[in-house]
């Protein structure tokens, strides 16, 4: 401009000056600085733009989630357990209480190591107190052992052979003691060993938290048996390996179970059976629902369906005088086309529905019996399907009469029959929860009788279930939270609502509470809080706003902004480059002139 034109005019005067390669004036920085300012303000504006198109993501505690899931996965939660062994009529001089305690613990440790520490057990986190009651005086090795000396003498064990009565009596003894001491530090499981003159040694596990061994037993034998009852029954719930896995606990994510009872009349042309479900509900099911309260909210519903043939075939067997379906047919027994065992409207989205089906066969397949693989006929005539429910085939007595009536028979299932059927259902429910249904525990050191509770589940079984339940819930909660954190981190353009953040936070808090409750040995509270943790985690995972990932993806953003930013960027960058080049060129010229002048 001014300088350049000036330079060109002076060039004629100076012979040394070559206007192509030299210039006299210093090159101006005006335009360079202008383009650079534009570039920098442009670059500075970028964060503001990114901020303006940012989507809302509630901050999630990723680290805490990771900590929790690693903590849960590395070591399953272990509850502290307290055991007590009472030796009645034993000689206090042969073994001391401490010796007995140590040997019981040694056996228990041996049994516990055999199977890897399962979720919700005590592993090696237990204490054993031993009391020796030798009629005259009692010796204990712990300070909080509260066994009333000679308590069993009052009951006269040898005379009364009624297990039920003894069970109640022991409960009253322990209950009183517990109340007196107000010892709330977890629950104590007790085995009472009574030395009697009888040859036969019997072991019975009661409905509460105690068991007893009677007969002519010696300390060594008793110690082994006590350890087995502690570990296999009280801690593991008397389960055998290969039964339903503990993680398949049929409880919905929201902690609800719907027991849906269905009476299926395969062909109402032959006969129509009805039941008095109201009575069954009030008399038989109500105590069970009450018993399961700490574990899950159980609700009951029923329906009667008609025209519901089974989907598998059965064959007539002359020897057994009945139609036979074998265990191979069981996968095809449930006819999902015709059995519209509706999902319940009353149950929320994630409740677990367990179907219990009474199948009344039609006249042309009556009586219908289930043949076991060993050729025998099943005594219950029913089967379960894990996580689905149970089926019982109930053969009406009318089918033996073999009379083709013109009008279908309308009858009610008699109260005795329905009681029987519901006892089978109770067994099936116990099996679905992973417990034994036959009332016998066969261990390495002999068979123990498990007394059945009228509430369906005895107290030590409920303890086992709530321990397992809290452990399983916590595992599930950990996996769900882990999935959320992985998902959220892998999708950076996903909107995360505050609700989700809150739910995750509360879920973590509940999980921590579970862990602390578990370490204190409060089973009920830990089951409750673990349920809460899992429910919140699942709520967060299935939050409807999680679907908003499909909107406002990066591609969308790019498509909207590129028509502006692509050309503008090009202009700005090119301008800076050109000006920079020109400046370098011009300053070279100036330097050349300067050199010449000097």
């Amino acid at each position, binding site marked *: *401009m*001014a300088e*350049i*034109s000036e330079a*060109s005019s002076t060039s004629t005067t100076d012979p040394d000056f070559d206007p192509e390669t030299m210039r006299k004036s210093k090159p101006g920085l005006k*335009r360079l600085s*202008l*383009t650079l300012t*534009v570039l920098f303000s442009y670059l500075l504006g970028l964060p503001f733009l990114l901020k303006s198109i940012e989507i809302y993501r509630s901050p999630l505690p990723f680290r805490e989630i990771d900590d929790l899931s690693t903590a849960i996965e590395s070591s399953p939660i272990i509850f502290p357990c307290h055991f007590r062994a009472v030796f009645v009529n034993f000689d206090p001089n042969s073994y001391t209480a401490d010796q007995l305690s140590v040997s019981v613990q040694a056996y228990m440790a041996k049994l516990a190591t055999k199977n890897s520490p399962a979720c919700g057990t005590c592993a090696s986190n237990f204490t054993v107190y031993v009391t020796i009651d030798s009629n005259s005086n009692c010796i204990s090795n712990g300070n909080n052992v509260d066994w009333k000396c000679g308590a069993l003498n009052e009951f006269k064990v040898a005379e009364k052979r009624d297990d039920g009565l003894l069970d109640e009596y022991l409960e009253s003894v322990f209950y009183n003691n517990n109340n007196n001491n107000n010892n709330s530090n977890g629950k104590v499981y007790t085995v009472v060993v009574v030395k009697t003159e009888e040859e036969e040694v019997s072991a019975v596990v009661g409905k509460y938290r105690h068991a007893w061994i009677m007969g002519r037993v010696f300390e060594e034998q008793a110690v082994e048996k006590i350890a087995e009852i502690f570990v296999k029954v009280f801690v593991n719930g008397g389960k055998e390996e290969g039964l339903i896995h503990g993680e398949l606990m049929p409880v919905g994510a929201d902690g609800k179970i719907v027991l849906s009872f269905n009476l299926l009349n395969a062909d*109402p*042309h032959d006969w*129509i059976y*009805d039941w008095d*479900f*109201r009575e069954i*509900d009030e008399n038989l099911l109500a105590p069970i629902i009450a018993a399961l309260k700490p574990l899950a909210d159980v609700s009951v*519903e*029923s*329906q*009667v*369906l*008609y*025209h519901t043939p089974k989907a598998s075939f059965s064959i007539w067997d002359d020897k057994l005088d009945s139609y036979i379906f074998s265990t191979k047919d069981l996968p095809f027994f449930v006819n999902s086309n015709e059995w*519209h065992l*509706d999902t*319940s*409207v*009353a149950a929320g989205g994630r409740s677990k529905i367990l179907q219990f089906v009474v199948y009344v066969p039609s006249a042309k397949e009556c009586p219908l019996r289930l043949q076991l693989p060993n050729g025998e006929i099943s005594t219950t005539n029913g089967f379960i399907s894990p996580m689905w429910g149970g089926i019982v085939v109930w053969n009406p007595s009318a089918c033996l009469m073999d009379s083709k009536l013109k009008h*279908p028979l309308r009858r009610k299932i008699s109260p005795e029959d329905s009681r029987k059927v519901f006892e089978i259902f109770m067994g099936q429910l116990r099996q679905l929860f992973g417990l034994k249904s036959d009332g016998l525990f066969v261990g390495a050191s002999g068979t123990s009788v498990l007394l059945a509770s009228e509430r369906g589940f005895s107290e030590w079984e409920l303890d086992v279930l709530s321990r397992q339940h809290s452990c399983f819930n916590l595992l599930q909660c950990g996996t769900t939270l882990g999935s959320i954190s992985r998902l959220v981190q892998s999708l950076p353009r996903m909107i995360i609502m505050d609700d989700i953040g809150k739910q995750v936070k509360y879920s973590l808090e509940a999980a921590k509470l579970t862990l602390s409750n578990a370490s204190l040995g409060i089973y009920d509270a830990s089951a409750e809080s673990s349920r809460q943790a899992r429910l919140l985690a699942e709520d967060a995972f299935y939050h409807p706003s999680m679907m908003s990932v499909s909107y406002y993806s990066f591609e969308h953003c790019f*498509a*909207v*902004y590129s*028509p*502006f930013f*692509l*050309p*503008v960027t*090009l*202009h*700005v960058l090119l*301008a800076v480059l*050109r*000006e920079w080049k020109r400046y370098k060129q011009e300053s070279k010229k100036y330097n050349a002139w300067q050199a010449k002048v000097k």
Partner: protein
Amino acid sequence: MFKCCLHSQLQFRSETSLESDHLMGSREPIVLIFLILISTYESSAKGGIAEELNEEFTEGLLLRPLPDRKVLAHFHFQSSVPPTRIYGRHHHLFPKSIYQLVNKFRVREMELSFTQGRWNYERWGGYDPISSSSAKPPGVELWADFDVPLDQVDDSWRNLTHALSGLFCASINFLEHSTSYSAPQWSFHSFAGKLRYGTLPREAVCTENLTPWLKLLPCRDKAGLSALMDRPSIYKGYYHSQRLHLTSDDFGTAKSNAGTMLEQTLTVVLQPNTLGARAMVSGKTLQPSWSLNSLFGRKVHGKCSVSKSSNVYVQFEQNLVSELKEVRKKSEAPESGILIHDDFGNNTIFEMSASPDRVVKEVENLQKEDSSILLEFLVEDYNDSKPFDLGLRWKLPVVWSCQQAPLHASRFLMGSGNERGAIAISLKSLSSNNTPTVGCCEKGSQLRINIFQVVPWYVKVYYHTLKVFIDGELQSTMENIEKIHISPSEDKVSPGVMEMILRLPCGVITAALTLEFDKGFLHIDEYPPDANQGFDIPSAVVSFTDFQASASFEDNLLNKLPILNELQERKHVISYTEVLLVPLTTPDFSMPYNVITITCTVFALYFGSLLNVLRRRVGEEERRLKSKAAKKKGPLTSLLSKLSAKLKGRPVEPPETPSTSPSLINNKLVLKVILVAGIAAGWQYYFR
């Protein structure tokens, strides 16, 4: 254009509806009627308590030949359960899902209908109970009345629509938006603001809706009358409407023993298969003969074993009965003084494959001596070896017409363009002698017509433009409207609702209502996928409050049968108008992106040129230009001049003086033009 018109009937159970129009004037007869009603109610209640309360299921089928060679089949199923406080919550027959639904959402009354096709009021009748209760608007119609506090009604409605949507595999959940349902005040039902009404005119109805509906029946379609429901047969009919009506008084203070009642009906209009040419007798075509097997392709193998009663009825309408008498008089000797129902199995006019177990005659309390006749067939006596297949064969041609509604209602759009239009509802008297209009409308009295119309918010109706035309002349609006309630639409919040009672003079021939509207604009997200198809305005409901569509039968024993109860229920005559299709302006849906792109490009251009102007050096450029002009030509021009020289065969000319340059520029111009033409030719050649 897609146009559907259906009519149906809503039940008016208000106390005033119990008054017959003849007793309107005076007070005493009303009191009397109440006394009678109360006493009958008490006696029936006592009878109800005496017998054991139990669940009941009944099934019934009503067949009726229609004048236009079609057959109406009306299936009726009813399940009832005593109230929960007496009976408990475990049921043997009543569907569990419906019971849970009623209890969870506290539904007092609900009606859901799925309809395909359009009820032809002119040919299939508009005055009888079936056309009033089972003729429904196309698509889905749902109304429900809740027993919850007023502020929870909308929540209950939303939850109910979702539950029903899952239960019936339909998109009823689209009724959850406040723009798609309305709360009628008084015209539809009188339930103090707790009733919600919504329709989905475009819902496609098919087997996936029928199967869940059948699942609510204890026998499904395995046995009983429902076994007739062969899907291809019932869906190829001219009209198909499945309805579910639910009443419950489990809630509230009333200690009645009615409990919960579920009424399911399926109404189909079928064309009997007439193989080959139509049978002709003495120059007239015979009505087609049909049987259950030819209509449905199936037979009835006995009743559903849990149903209390299972009957099939064939109904001959009043006009058909009088026509039959006429035909018989002509064809037979005068000794045909015998009553028509003496030989229903086989007579000179038609023949039935089975003789009816009973013949029931309607008691017409008003005028004519002829009244409709029901032939009852009991399905109980039939079984697998002896299936029930009812057939009707005509021997003589018979022509008759159905009883018509007092006025024929239709609705149409006026105006053109995408900006504004008008809705017109026209009511036309069908000037034939057999309409009851003549008899009912006495001198000096007036015909009252109740109109209920819901209009979506994007059709902005100007209610002040309401005009009433009677017999083609514009009338004063205020004089002809007895009562009107309007809740104008609110954009994106609620639809516009109009309820009115129109008072028309006796003997009116045509009446019309017009309302002008503007078409609104929707947000781009609110358009449905097929926006160019247009938008539906749901059917308007026109009810004739002075007329009762009910039949009463002579036999009192029949009162126990729900299907006949349904016929005898006193309801207003109701017709539904057509669904209107309003085309709205649909935007170019790529518009937002186009706008973004153009705006951004303009901005980028502006920005770029601004930047270029800022760093321009004007002086330097001028100097450059000058020096360029002073210098010789560039290498390209010299090359070109060499080339042209060679072509001309002349030696290369020395560079010319500026004075000769214009000719060179001309050469350049010619070359450029040739280049452009060549590119254009190539383009044309390759991209043809």
